[in-house]
């Protein structure tokens, strides 16, 4: 915890040298990277707060857990800041391997073991495909730096089969990591089986890192190919929203339900990416889409971690606590937690004034701005599905009689985690101005000559 806080402070002090290159031009610490670093650290910090008591309950309280968590944060930071495909890949693997272990951390729990194995196999497979794509880029451009690749790619014919194969294999790797349909099958199982605190961590920090990677590669590196990949993203985003929302409707396990809901959220974010991909670089539509994704990740970090924190606190010595029925009557057992869970759920559903609305707002804003009226309408339609399954949780929480009447003991760390998440969800929702400014600041770099030159 302290370490994460210290890192945050450390970054704060290194802010002035904005956009400095390091490690033989493989690392670019720009505002984009710093924004994501804050996200990772925030997510990790809240996850650690959630974990302490939970691990104790699970009888798996080992120091390695925190080491792995922080190691994966290092990997994420490389993913957000790297502009060399080798470093990006190393970061990705560092994060992924740490997460595989964390998913299987509950050694005595068969679900956890199964989830870890499944995640490992599929993850390794997708990494292989991703590495294959990256190696093709190296072959096509003769360099591993994204700037070199971008320059080489703009000279190539975008419909050259090798280019298309390289692009598609790279995208498979990226889409797998953000868990977009049809590369999402690992997510519900891994989320359900993993320790709940890790599920929360995976659904926000790991996902944000995957998004950072995707934006780095597709926007900074392969932007000249956007006419090729944007149609693919359109199809994937529709498939993601459809598949995830329909699947979530019938879930009875809250962790699994939230897993599908997080896939659905990826679908919405992909919509914003479509808006970006169909607008000129630096145009208002592009920037609003970009902002949409960044803000969405920000609000999502808090609201989703908050929701998972409440679910984590349901785990007691003799109760697993991740079924929808375990939520029943939570209001009677822990009124404050239930009220905050309601806040998180409404925020996830995008109801103002909770923060989630702001994320949705920016996504639809960018879609309307770039003229995708049909996609926008589809998106709002699916947000209704979202509301339905979030209300299912709310209903059992607030309107059903509790199975057990004793009050739910909530540890101090957990209280802090839920409190921070709730506070952020409300503050971002009611007074978003500073946060929007923050995102604008982090995007400022995209217009500065430094990166603009890189993209060319």
């Amino acid at each position, binding site marked *: 915890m302290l370490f994460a806080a210290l890192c945050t402070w450390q970054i704060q002090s290194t802010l002035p040298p904005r956009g400095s290159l390091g490690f033989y031009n493989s690392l670019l610490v720009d505002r984009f990277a710093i924004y994501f670093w804050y996200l990772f650290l925030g997510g990790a910090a809240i996850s650690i707060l959630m974990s302490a008591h939970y691990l104790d309950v699970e009888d798996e309280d080992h120091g390695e857990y925190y080491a792995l968590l922080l190691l994966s944060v290092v990997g994420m930071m490389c993913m957000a800041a790297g502009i060399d495909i080798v470093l990006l890949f190393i970061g990705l693997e560092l994060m992924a391997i740490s997460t595989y272990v964390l998913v299987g951390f509950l050694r005595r729990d068969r679900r956890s073991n199964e989830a870890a194995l499944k995640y490992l196999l599929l993850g390794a497979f997708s990494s292989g495909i991703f590495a294959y794509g990256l190696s093709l880029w190296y072959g096509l451009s003769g360099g591993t730096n994204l700037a070199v690749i971008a320059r080489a790619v703009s000279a190539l014919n975008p419909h050259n089969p090798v280019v298309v194969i390289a692009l598609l294999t790279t995208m498979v790797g990226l889409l797998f990591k953000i868990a977009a349909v049809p590369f999402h099958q690992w997510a519900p199982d891994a989320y359900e089986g993993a320790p709940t605190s890790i599920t929360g961590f995976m659904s926000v920090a790991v996902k944000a890192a995957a998004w950072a990677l995707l934006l780095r590669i597709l926007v900074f590196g392969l932007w000249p190919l956007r006419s090729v990949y944007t149609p693919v993203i359109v199809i994937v985003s529709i498939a993601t929203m459809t598949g995830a929302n329909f699947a979530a409707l019938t879930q009875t396990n809250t962790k699994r339900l939230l897993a599908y809901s997080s896939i659905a959220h990826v679908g919405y974010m992909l919509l914003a990416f479509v808006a970006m991909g169909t607008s000129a670089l630096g145009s208002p539509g592009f920037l609003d889409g970009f902002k949409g994704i960044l803000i969405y990740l920000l609000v999502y970090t808090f609201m989703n971690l908050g929701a998972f924190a409440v679910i984590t606190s349901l785990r007691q010595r003799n109760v697993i606590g991740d079924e929808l029925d375990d939520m029943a009557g939570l209001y009677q057992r822990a009124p404050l937690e239930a009220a905050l869970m309601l806040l998180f759920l409404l925020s996830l559903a995008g109801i103002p004034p909770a923060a989630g609305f702001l994320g949705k707002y920016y996504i639809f804003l960018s879609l*309307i*701005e770039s003229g995708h009226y049909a996609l926008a309408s589809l998106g709002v339609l699916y947000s209704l599905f979202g509301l339905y399954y979030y209300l299912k949780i709310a209903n059992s929480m607030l309107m059903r009689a509790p199975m057990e009447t004793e009050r739910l003991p909530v540890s101090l760390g957990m209280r802090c985690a839920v409190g921070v998440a709730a506070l952020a969800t409300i503050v971002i929702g009611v007074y978003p101005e500073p946060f929007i400014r923050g995102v604008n600041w982090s995007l400022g770099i995209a217009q500065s000559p430094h990166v603009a030159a890189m993209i060319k």
Partner: protein
Amino acid sequence: MQSHILSIILFTPLVGAFVLLFVPKENKDAIRWTANIFALAGFLISLPLVPMFWAQRFLPGFKFLEGTPNNWIPSIGAGYNLGIDGISFLLIMLTTVLGWISILSSWTAIEIRVKEYYVWFLLLQTGMLGVFMALDFFLFFVFWEAMLVPMYLLIGIWGGPRKLYAAIKFFLYTLLGSVLMLLGILFLYFHHHTVTGFFTFSIPELYKTAPMIPFQTAIWLFVAFFIGFAIKVPMFPFHTWLPDAHVEAPTAGSVILAGVLLKMGTYGFVRFSLPFFPAVVSHPKVQGWVIFLSLVGIIYGALVSLMQKDMKKLVAYSSVSHLGFCTLGIFVLNSAGVTGSVLQQINHGISTGALFLIVGILYERRHTREIAEYGGISNVMPLYATITMIMFLSSMGLPLLNGFVGEFTILQGAFTANWRWAAWAAPGVVLAAAYLLWLYQRVFFGTVTNPKNEKLHDLTPREILTFVPLIIMALWIGLYPKPFFQILEQPVNQIVQTIHNNSNANAPVSAQVAPAPAPPATVAVAAKASN
């Protein structure tokens, strides 16, 4: 000089909700007293608005402006910007009165989770007031959606047997409408930017640019807004959530639902659909369809009411019929129609609010709403029977009571526009008399047939108090409606004028104004001239 009266009215219930959080849960009476004090305070604080507004009733534009455009979230052009005209003034007064009455009426009706109940109710009150006060589309939308949450919980926690179903249905239906509206709002926002060069959600600003949208686009926007408002009203065929929500909701929830929430839909039509899309609403085909739906709603709602065995469901369907009159009045697009419609919205809030209270009082005593369970109630509860009669007569539109004034004005407007519309709407009045009088006859007249009803006690002073303001208002509007017409005159004429000016120009003004990089200062200046 900026007066802060609107903010004070808006946030009094919110403060009340906050204070309630610190009252211990076990002390139910303390909670009730606190909630009622804040509800009454919310009403009393809104009273000074009456003379203040009266003094400037003929002045054009929005009054009591607060805040400036874009002062809340400058990055996206949203502002905390409040202001009212005659239409929103009346609806705000209705909201504060009904909010107080509903909270007063829940004293004995709510026995479980009392604290939460009042907290949510007060939050709901703030949300509703915000909808009527907001002059910024972003702010409006936030209130519009945020208000759904307390209502959903009121139905879902304190509702009847099928409360879960009704609560989710209510939430999903209304959200469907509002998300489509959000897309429409965003389009207007970007259109405003193309025309003027700056981003703002300020409604008076959007008034200026929205009519320039070409017809082919405007019709889609109109549909997006229309669905949102029509679900809220609810117009036939979007009404199916209403009977469920009403039947399951607790009495006070029904009162607010019928009295205020439904008015948001009609308010939306008057405030947004008409001035934003004048060319679309005055297009004969669009107008014809909307009026057709209104007429179907009037007749259908009345016929279904006739068939009901459950009193609350009867009143719920009668709302569909009455709101049909309101939408009819709006879309005949002349000043008589629109004035009558707004007045009828107030009347409906008074009468139907009272009807739900009446049903609630019987329900609290007998725990059934089956009409067949009752009979001869006037023998045991004479005072109750009298008040019920007054409210029934008001609801069915008997002269000298409020309903008559509203319906008459609407029919007059409809007749001026097209006599066939008036002819089709008129049976609604007759049918209203039929289902209400028949209900009265079955419940109140005759001898007491059911022995369970022999021991019913008449109204308590608290219950009488809930009816007093409603009866006063009903008589006032019925006997001397002139002040109300005066209040509505200016805003209504302005809307009708906008439509008249734009409907002739069949080739809509294209966005030929050069996008000028306007400095932010002009936003504030421009917002003042909202006429």
